[in-house]
């Protein structure tokens, strides 16, 4: 595409001389370029240095039912337009109920229609008309009515002056539209609930009094504002659909340097032609700025998201395994980079120059090959390491611990058999499942049976190990009560090869054990558990068996028994939105820290299945999984009937995942830049080696790069990710992924090559890490700042000159704001007392290990209408935007974000729909706790179920299907995933956010 600019249609009817509503902390005045206290409690905007100009306040509030009372107050939209002095406009209407700072209550200015948290701005579709560019992205619906008053009049220009002339890029096209400013001050939007807010959000509490603003009485009334068309702002679903339309079903060849791959959501096939598949590596931008200055200027993070074990599509070739025998892989003598397509063979093939460090190396004799007339080795196409982006080497003993070949890894199932788990029936469920599950352990391609050994431990206050050596007539249980200094009581007989076990006759020992475990503890009354010793036991077992492996821990409660790692309840909602909120996310130090190190050193990955009924300090308990490449699954108030299948699906997926153990990853880059930061479920002992006890097909490591020196446009930038790991068969291998990127002195190139999904992955991870050390407020502020900076930089340097009121977004990043906004509304970042601390911590940790697909889906759930689809078609119905607007009272929608799944049923769902899906006469007959659809033999039911099952199968996590009826209480859960709307727990609507960002950009540009 020639145009790289995308100019959003500004949602407001008028150019506004300033911003209102968002600047909770703008108190320091415009001299301060940063947005202080973004998202903080509503505050008066106190010190505008320039009081001139007018602000347009748009207050679009749709009155909704109070959440608790489900009482619909008002359904129509009220559009208010206020003109007031700049000073006045800054007051934020409190959106929360009582406990607000007195001052801010006193400052309640002018919200005539009280804002509701659920309210969302509904812009009239009659805003100003942008000049539509012929290159406009097709999803932009043309604005309906161009208002006359589009010019920004007398806007204070106190921001820093533009630095330097705009960089000339390709001609800026797109539609420039005056961006009229934000909606009504703080009525909805960016304030997060203040501390201590307990009342239901969104209660109308005060009739806003225009002009009641202290210090600035007498607000000005503006002309009535019209509603902005939500369809006119960039739509993710549209972007996805377009990309799918353009590149879906195509073969993507990786032979071009700096080529931007299709979106993660697009269905395409990759053909490796010298660069790693985007399934393995994705970058935030495929064209790096040549200099550090440029990088700094544009603020676009330079990062790669590496998913070393990503699953490939069926029609894609699995990685070749290269075996160089005893010499091992060929590596550059200086930088140790592995042989790859970037090595330049010279001197008739006798030597090669490393593409990373330029060192010239001798070609080993056995590896010598003549060059053809193009200077390419004759065996170029025969050697994967010369022609492919991704391949594997067989590692030699030098790459093994103690120079000994590794043993096949082991899986240990560690089941908490305390009262809760026995009572809930969980233990029995697990044991029954394991019998079949164990027959399906993953095995290397072509192997008949799995080499993985399995062991069993049950525990409460003490640990029980089981000896299922096949020589025995009965399993034996060994109890270890010395939890202070954990050890494993046996080796031989503890870890066994399952396939031998299951076929052991006459009574398979393992089945017998799994049958007996639930009975043995049937009358237990032990409710205390230990936790750290359990993991220690696993580490010790692996140590003794000299192998790596994975622990599957099924745990129900906070470990309170007297043992190392004993935890206390430190949940304190009072800390939310304070400086100390970060402590809620920080793990307890001491024994847990050491434990992570021990686990990583031994290659012991920990997967945690949690079944809490109350707070259990997941921040601490999940610390070990989050450093060992493990996963944490959580089932609140677990009940076998409703959550059993969901859990078992997770367990099956988890057990069967393709995975590598005892991994160490190193990212090498060509000169000029290097990897500086690593995010993921990893452990770092030094600044370069990424250690992972295990890494599976769903774990991604996000790597940030910084400049060391200038990069050359000619040579571009190369990166090589080398992952040393142990296969499930116990073979030591090196997995190599190579990627080459462009470099440019033109920022426009960079913006053109940006990848929004990768960017948001990076931002998600860096924000999730930042909240460990900073107040959430700062983190959110930084997010908005950086977003604004990036966009402002584009505007300044790449876009053709246009009115300042125009919001101009780079095409590749046009949906970026909606992701950022959604990110800030995620549980960890939203800072709401209504969310459980554990849920927040859990999600924070989950995000750290996510790949690009996962963050994309998490931050923009799929909302799919199911009521009007073509039942006979194979295709999935097209998703719609995540907004309440898109729901219809008579519709049925499926929403999923990779973690939760809802089937939403409109109030007015036709009975025949209900009948064919649920076999019930009407919606009213629907039981609340249904978690699976009945299997009915009609096309709609079959189709719906196949869609649901398909999604569950496709996602890394299984999801529990929750069925919600419109206006039922559980609908709240559903609504929080409508990320374009105002957040249920705080956070702005997409529209409001976009306005806010626009204001920020303008601030920066002035």
């Amino acid at each position: 595409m020639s145009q790289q600019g995308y100019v959003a249609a500004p949602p407001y009817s008028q150019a506004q001389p300033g911003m209102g509503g968002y600047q909770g902390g703008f108190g320091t005045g415009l001299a301060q370029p940063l947005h202080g206290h973004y998202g903080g409690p509503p505050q008066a905007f106190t010190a505008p240095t320039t009081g001139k100009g007018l602000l347009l306040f748009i207050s679009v509030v749709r009155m909704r039912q109070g959440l608790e009372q489900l009482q619909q107050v008002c359904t129509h939209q009220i559009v208010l337009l206020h003109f007031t002095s700049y000073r006045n406009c800054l007051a934020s209407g409190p959106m929360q109920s009582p406990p607000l700072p007195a001052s801010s209550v006193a400052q309640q200015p002018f919200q005539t229609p009280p804002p509701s948290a659920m309210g969302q701005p509904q812009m009239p579709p009659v805003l100003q008309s942008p000049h539509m560019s012929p290159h406009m992205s097709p999803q932009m619906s043309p604005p309906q009515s161009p208002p006359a008053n589009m010019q920004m009049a007398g806007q204070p220009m106190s921001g820093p002056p533009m630095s330097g002339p705009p960089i000339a890029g390709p001609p800026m096209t797109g539609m420039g539209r005056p961006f009229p400013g934000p909606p009504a001050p703080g009525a909805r939007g960016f304030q997060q609930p203040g501390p201590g807010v307990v009342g239901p959000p969104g209660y109308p509490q005060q009739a806003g009094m225009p002009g009641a603003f202290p210090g600035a009485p007498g607000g000005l009334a503006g002309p009535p504002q019209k509603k902005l068309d939500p369809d006119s702002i960039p739509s993710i679903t549209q972007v996805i659909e377009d990309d799918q339309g353009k590149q879906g079903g195509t073969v993507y060849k990786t032979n071009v340097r700096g080529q931007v791959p299709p979106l993660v959501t697009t269905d395409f096939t990759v053909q490796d032609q010298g660069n790693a598949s985007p399934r393995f590596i994705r970058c935030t931008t495929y064209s790096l700025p040549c200099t550090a200055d440029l990088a700094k200027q544009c603020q676009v993070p330079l990062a790669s998201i590496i998913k070393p074990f990503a699953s490939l599509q069926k029609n894609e070739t699995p990685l070749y395994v290269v075996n160089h025998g005893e010499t091992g892989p060929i590596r550059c003598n200086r930088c140790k980079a592995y042989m790859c397509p970037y090595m330049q063979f010279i001197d008739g093939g006798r030597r090669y120059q490393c593409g990373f460090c330029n060192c010239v190396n001798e070609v080993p004799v056995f590896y010598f090959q003549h060059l053809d007339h193009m200077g390419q080795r004759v065996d170029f196409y025969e050697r994967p390491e010369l022609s492919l982006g991704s391949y594997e080497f067989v590692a030699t003993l030098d790459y093994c611990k103690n120079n000994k070949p590794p043993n096949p890894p082991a899986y240990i199932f560690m089941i908490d058999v305390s009262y809760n788990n026995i009572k809930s029936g969980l233990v029995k469920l697990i044991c029954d499942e394991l019998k079949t599950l164990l027959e399906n352990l993953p095995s290397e391609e072509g192997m008949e049976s799995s080499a993985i050994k399995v062991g069993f431990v049950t525990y409460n206050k003490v640990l029980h190990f089981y000896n299922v050596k096949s020589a025995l007539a009965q399993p034996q249980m060994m109890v270890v009560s010395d939890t202070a200094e954990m050890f494993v009581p046996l080796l031989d007989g503890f870890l066994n090869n399952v396939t031998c076990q299951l076929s052991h006759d006459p009574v398979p020992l393992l089945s017998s054990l799994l049958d007996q475990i639930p009975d043995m503890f049937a009358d237990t009354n032990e409710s205390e558990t230990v936790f750290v010793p359990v993991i220690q036991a696993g580490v010790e077992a692996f140590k003794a068996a000299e192998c790596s492996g994975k622990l599957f821990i099924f745990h129900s409660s906070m470990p309170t028994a007297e043992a190392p790692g004993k935890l206390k309840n430190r949940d304190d909602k009072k800390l939310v939105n304070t400086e100390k909120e970060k402590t809620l996310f920080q793990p307890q130090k001491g024994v847990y820290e050491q434990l992570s190190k021990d686990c990583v050193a031994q290659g012991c990955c920990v997967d945690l299945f949690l079944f809490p009924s109350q707070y259990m300090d997941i921040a601490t308990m999940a610390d070990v999984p989050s450093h060992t490449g493990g996963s944490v699954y959580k089932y609140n108030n677990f009940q076998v009937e409703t959550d059993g299948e969901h859990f078992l699906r997770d367990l099956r997926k988890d057990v069967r995942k393709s995975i590598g153990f005892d991994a160490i990853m190193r990212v090498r880059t060509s000169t000029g830049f290097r990897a500086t930061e690593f995010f993921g479920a990893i452990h770092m002992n030094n600044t370069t080696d990424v250690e992972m006890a295990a890494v599976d097909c769903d774990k991604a490591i996000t790597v940030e790069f910084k400049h060391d020196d200038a990069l050359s446009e000619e040579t571009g930038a190369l990166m090589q990710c080398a992952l040393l790991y142990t296969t499930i068969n116990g073979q030591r291998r090196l997995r190599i992924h190579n990627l080459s990127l462009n470099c440019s002195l033109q920022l426009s190139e960079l913006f053109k090559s940006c990848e929004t999904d990768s960017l948001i992955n990076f931002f998600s991870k860096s924000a999730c890490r930042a909240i460990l050390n900073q107040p959430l407020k700062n983190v959110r502020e930084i997010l908005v700042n950086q977003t604004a900076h990036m966009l402002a930089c584009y505007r300044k340097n790449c876009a053709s000159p246009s009115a300042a009121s125009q919001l101009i977004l780079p095409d590749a990043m046009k949906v970026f704001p909606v992701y950022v906004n959604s990110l800030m509304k995620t549980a960890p970042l939203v800072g709401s007392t209504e969310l459980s601390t554990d849920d927040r911590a859990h999600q924070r940790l989950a995000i750290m290990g996510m790949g690009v697909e996962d963050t994309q889906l998490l931050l923009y759930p799929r909302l799919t209408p199911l009521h009007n689809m073509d039942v006979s078609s194979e295709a999935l119905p097209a998703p719609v935007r995540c907004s309440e607007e898109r729901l219809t009272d008579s519709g049925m929608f499926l929403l999923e974000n990779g973690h939760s799944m809802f089937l939403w049923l409109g109030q007015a769902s036709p009975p025949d729909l209900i009948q064919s899906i649920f076999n019930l006469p009407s919606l009213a007959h629907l039981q609340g706790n249904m978690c699976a659809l009945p299997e009915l033999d009609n096309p709609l039911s079959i189709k719906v179920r196949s869609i649901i099952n398909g999604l569950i199968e496709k996602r890394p996590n299984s999801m529990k299907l929750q069925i919600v009826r419109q206006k039922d209480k559980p609908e709240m859960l559903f609504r929080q995933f409508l990320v374009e709307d105002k957040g249920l727990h705080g956070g702005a609507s997409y529209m409001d956010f976009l306005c806010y960002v626009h204001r920020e950009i303008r601030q920066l540009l002035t």
Partner: protein
Amino acid sequence: MATYQEFIQQNEDRDGVRFSWNLWPSSRLEATRLVVPVSCLFTPLKERPDLPPVQYEPVLCSRANCKAVLNPLCQVDFRAKIWACNFCFQRNPFPPSYAGISEVNQPAELMPQFSTIEYIVQRGPTPPLIFLYVVDTCLEEEDLQALKESLQMSLSLLPPNALVGLITFGRMVQVHELSCEGIAKSYVFRGTKDLSSKQIQVGGDKGRPPQPENAGVFVFITRFLQPVHRVDMNLTDLLGELQRDPWPVPQGKRPLRSTGVALSVAVGLLEGTFPNTGARVMLFIGGPPTQGPGMVVGDELKTPIRSWHDIQKDNARHLKKATKYYEAMANRSAVNGHCIDIYACALDQTGLLEMKCLSNLTGGHIVMGDSFNTSLFKQTFQRVFSKDYNGDFRMAFGGVLEVKEMGIGGTSQWKVCGINPSTTLALYFEVVNQHNAPVPQGGRGVIQFVTQYQHSNTQRRIRVTTIARNWADAQSQIQHIESSFDQEASAVLMARLGVFRAESEEGPDVLRWLDRQLIRLCQKFGQFNKDDPTSFKLSESLSLYPQFMFHLRRSPFLQVFNNSPDESSYYRHHFVRQDLTQSLIMIQPILYSYSFHGPPEPVLLDSSSILPDRILLMDTFFQLVIYHGETIAQWRKAGYQEMAEYENFKQLLLAPLDDAQEILQTRFPMPRYIDTEHGGSQARFLLSKVNPSQTHNNLYAWGQVLRGAPILTDDVSLQVFMDHLKKLAVSSSA
């Protein structure tokens, strides 16, 4: 009057007591001048099939610090119904139940033939016997299998109500729960961490108190100790399933064996559940402890286990610490009345030196063998559970021996946790009267032994033995005293003193002390002219004594040469607890000779007895050696015994085998059975014991016809020894 010989024999038969002197010197000075102290060997539970226990409580002297038991030697006033305590002279009334007493109606304890009497006392519930097996699993497969079978077999020998427990150990220590159904369950402890008794309770049994059941009868049940009849099948299966220690042993390493912690767990478990109840911890080991507290040697094979040489050089790293650890454990166990047996079967040492106190201080057995898969172990182990004429075990528990003496000292008490009928204690007395205030002439010294114990049928019993000896003035009655000398008992008693010293002193010092005592004794009682060795003569009652001493000097009890520290410990352990006859065999092995020349005859333990046409049978207590002389051996090799016409030869070959079998039947522990012949390597067992009257040194000098076999040794022969003794005894300068 009967001879002293008869008197001594009669006393031994009746009371199981043998004194070194049967007349006692009347003052301390006199006593020390006798060289051999006034002392006795006492077999508390000597089997007395003719002694039915009485079913009532003994009558005690009412004096608080005396509490002597009424005995035949007490003066009784039948009319006043009063008896005088012969220890403190307190006059005591008889209890009401003795109202019918008269000269013609005396209770058993007043009759002279009941100088030893046994009472059965009923005091509260009788706890069952407890057997706790502590089994090393770091064994060779074959050994473990044999041990498992032995253990399974032993279950059938236990009384059904006895409680059994099982602890196994290797790198870890496992306490097996016996009651559970289905999955066998055990509690595991780290082999390197010593746990306090309390921790074991908490960890293992959660301090579950014994459950009262059935109207006041306490049935103690824990999960780890269960009545045999209840868990018989279960335990048999469990033992059958017992695996070798599953931890791999790298090359060049010993298996990690947590013997110390295993014992600590065992002792702690019993301490917590059954204090002061008869219990037997039976430890089976196949190697030395190699880790944790009580380790004897590290797991590096290149560091060998300590030898005597190391010990003398103070080079045994773990010796002191381990010994201290086991001593502390032995003391704990003794306080609780539990005894510890050690069954050590391995080719190398197993650390008996360090662990011996476990058995020594608690009255347990030590059995040492090469493998659990030998009849030596199997039969010995079986014999532990042998039954007496009543079908009761020949073992008793929780014994407390109290000795009351008259005119000599106060009372003393010893605790002997495990006693069997042959357990023999040596008691050394001190005459406290000063020389100027001797015990009056004509008086009798009285000693009462009170042994309280738990019989194997769980009854509490008290055995009281009261004996009396005359006092004699050493100056005027030296002849009488001399003739009252019991040289056999004295030899054993002196030997025990010597062994006791050898435990803490250097070998040569002990020998010097022993020589010194012998010379002094000879000087005191020998008849000689000064400086004339040829004139030296000893009376009949002392005549054999020097010879005993000669063999004692050469015995493994005092000589450590050629013995490992473990072997020495083992030999000494048995030496200090066997009865007189066995002890004498140990000092001076018995040699029988079989030939066509006549019936088997005992022959001198001398190299001259080794003849080509003889078969010799030597019994050293620990070994039974059958030695075929050169000619016999050749005949045997030629197979003459198979031929009908040489039936007599076959008979000759069988004769010593039958005799050996007889000894093997009764001996505990089973001796090592050695069948060898002239020139056989095993012949060394015989050659090292016999008096080397003919050696390579004197063989040809004499120029006489060779009889017997020369021994290649530099040891002095008995003749030389006697010559020196005579010389020194008569020497005026000595």
